[in-house]
């Protein structure tokens, strides 16, 4: 029999059918696993469906072939012919199904890609949103941190500013010098309490103050303005300020102009130090030096004149013995003797002024000295209707001094007061003592109600031979000698005219001399000053 055996093809068909089912199911298994691992991935789902369709197709085809082989082997050709249309039809159905599923791939992938793109965009948007949220969170954190730091810094700066403001406010208000601010109209916009006190104004009166009112002379004000315009400041400018009561004080002024961006002066600020006391002290020092030099000169002159005066007096007295008392030469010699004695007294006073005479130092009571002086002078004073008021503080500490010389000082002061009030026909002398606990000094004041001492001569009253009395009424040595004695005692003699009442603060006409002597450190000591 020619032809080809079909056994190989039958065997291949049978084995292949089994292999088809095997591999189809293996593939389906992995496709299933993929869907389990990534359920969201469309591709795995699709491949899983393909594998299901392929497996179904494999089963239908392979099973059909195996059944066919089974029936044909067993000789049941009729049965096979009966069921073969069904297996063939089912096989065709599976084939179409697989084809349909396979064809669906493209559209599915396209949809999947679109969805993936959208999902990616959405994920990107979410990621950006998360990043933005994170950045916002960080920004917010930084802002909060900055805010916290800012609050702390503001608190610190405010505290620093407050401390600084307090410090400068204290410096401004507690300063003993005048600190002021003025505007372009020269009105004082702000001034500290010391400034008010210095100028004699009340704090509520500051709106009235103007630099024109403050400066005593227009020349100084012009100099001040010129310096401010030219240099923008003025330093250590000695000027005179006029107080509310019209009195003048000497100040040392430093001021600075405050300018705007265009360089125009918008205001100025200044500090003024009251130099009145310093100036007075300087004048007193100058006077003191002058007095010292005058005293030295007077001492030299007195020493040189004293000897010839003694000889003149001696010879005049010797000659008086040679003449009758009623004779003219005798009377002439008496005149010589009297004038010579007067000259010797002047010389003695000059020596006292220059401290060239000896003195005994002991602890003494100023009150006793004053009582003695008043007892001696009261009678003469009452003749001219001058009343003496003694206001002596008890328990005053003793002072070290020469009682005789101190008496002379107070007699001189009372005599001056007497002379000052002699013309007006009456008057009062107030003698007061007290203890200044601040300076540890005993103070004795002699005040009269006379016409006072003009300001222009006040600086000269302690000069030797300076007097306002008529010729022959005074030598001009009383206050000079008193000055010398007090200075020799280590004390101070002060003049005030007119006088400010210590109780009411009112200005009273008259003159007051104050003697300040230090309290005795050793109440029992008695000191001897050498006699020259």
């Amino acid at each position: 029999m020619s032809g080809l055996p079909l056994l190989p093809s039958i065997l291949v068909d049978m084995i292949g059918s089994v292999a088809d089912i095997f591999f189809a199911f293996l593939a389906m298994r992995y496709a299933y696993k993929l869907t389990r691992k990534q359920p969201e991935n469309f591709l795995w789902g699709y491949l899983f469906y393909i594998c299901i369709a392929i497996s179904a197709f494999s089963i239908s085809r392979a099973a059909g072939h195996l059944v066919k082989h089974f029936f044909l082997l067993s000789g049941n050709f009729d049965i096979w012919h009966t069921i073969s249309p069904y297996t063939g039809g089912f096989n065709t159905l599976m084939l179409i199904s697989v084809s349909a599923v396979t064809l669906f791939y493209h559209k599915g992938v396209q949809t999947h890609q679109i969805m993936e793109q959208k999902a990616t965009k959405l994920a990107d948007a979410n990621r950006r949103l998360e990043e933005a949220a994170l950045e916002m969170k960080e920004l917010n954190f930084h802002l909060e941190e900055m805010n916290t730091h800012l609050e702390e810094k503001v608190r610190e700066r405010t505290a620093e500013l407050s401390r600084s403001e307090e410090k400068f406010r204290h410096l401004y208000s507690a300063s003993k010098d005048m600190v002021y601010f003025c505007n372009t109209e020269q009105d004082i916009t702000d001034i500290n309490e010391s400034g008010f006190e210095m100028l004699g104004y009340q704090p509520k009166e500051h709106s009235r103050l103007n630099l024109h009112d403050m400066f005593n002379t227009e020349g100084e004000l012009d100099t001040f303005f010129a310096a401010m315009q030219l240099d923008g400041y003025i330093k250590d400018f000695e000027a005179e300020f006029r107080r509310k009561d019209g009195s003048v004080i000497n100040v040392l002024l430093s001021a600075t102009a405050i300018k705007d961006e265009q360089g125009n002066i918008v205001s100025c600020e200044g500090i003024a130090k009251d130099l009145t006391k310093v100036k007075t002290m300087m004048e007193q020092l100058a006077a003191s030096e002058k007095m010292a030099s005058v005293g030295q000169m007077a001492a030299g002159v007195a020493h040189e004149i004293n000897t010839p005066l003694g000889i003149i007096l001696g010879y005049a007295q010797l000659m008086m013995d040679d003449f009758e008392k009623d004779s003219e030469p005798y009377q002439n010699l008496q005149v010589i003797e009297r004038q010579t004695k007067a000259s010797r007294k002047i010389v003695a006073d000059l020596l006292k002024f220059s401290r060239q005479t000896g003195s005994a130092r002991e602890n003494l009571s100023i009150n006793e000295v004053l009582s003695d002086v008043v007892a001696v002078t009261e009678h003469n004073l009452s003749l001219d209707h001058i009343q003496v008021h003694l206001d002596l503080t008890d328990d005053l500490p003793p002072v070290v001094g020469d009682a005789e010389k101190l008496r002379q000082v107070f007699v001189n002061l009372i005599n001056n007061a007497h002379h000052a009030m002699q013309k007006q026909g009456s008057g009062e002398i107030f003698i007061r003592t007290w203890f200044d606990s601040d300076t540890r000094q005993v103070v004795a004041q002699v005040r009269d109600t006379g016409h006072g001492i003009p300001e222009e001569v006040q600086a000269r009253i302690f000069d030797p031979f300076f007097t306002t009395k008529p010729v022959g009424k005074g030598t001009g040595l009383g206050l000079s000698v008193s000055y010398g004695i007090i200075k020799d005692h280590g004390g101070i003699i002060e003049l005030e005219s007119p006088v400010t009442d210590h109780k009411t603060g009112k200005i009273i006409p008259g003159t007051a001399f104050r003697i300040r002597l230090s309290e005795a450190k050793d109440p029992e000591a008695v000191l001897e000053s050498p006699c020259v």
Partner: protein
Amino acid sequence: MKISLHTNRSVAGFFFCLVLVFLFLPDSAWALQSHGPPEGIYTHQMAHIFFFVSLLYLYRDLGHSSSKEQGWRYLRWFCLLMVSWNIVAFIGHAVTFLLASEYIADAGSFFHSRLLGPMNRTKFLFYVTRFDHLLVVPALYFLYLGLRSLHGQVKEAREVLENRESSA
């Protein structure tokens, strides 16, 4: 979008051709059409054509849209082998349909069946196409390899991700 238009056009073209076949080869013009015996083999052959086209379509899409990883390459091999099998099966069905019924002799047993001579081109094709499993089995093997490879990649990627998360 270009791919989408092209795809839609191809599908529409395929169905248009199918309609033309039905129009120009009518078996009966009656409204309620009866289905004769050859209709089954026609339907089956058309199913092979349909499967053939869809596999080519899938092969092209896998080349265009999928990555070049090993798993996808295996799937493309699956497509090519299945396309080949469709051709072989189509030819096999056609030649079986063309051959006369007395071409096989069973000689008393199915295993001893023989293709009767004399051999010609049709019989030869019939004989060769009966070994179609030599294409189907490798095709399904590549399908299995492809899915196993893809599964391995996904598993590996997931493990790397989990290790990274656990270390972080």
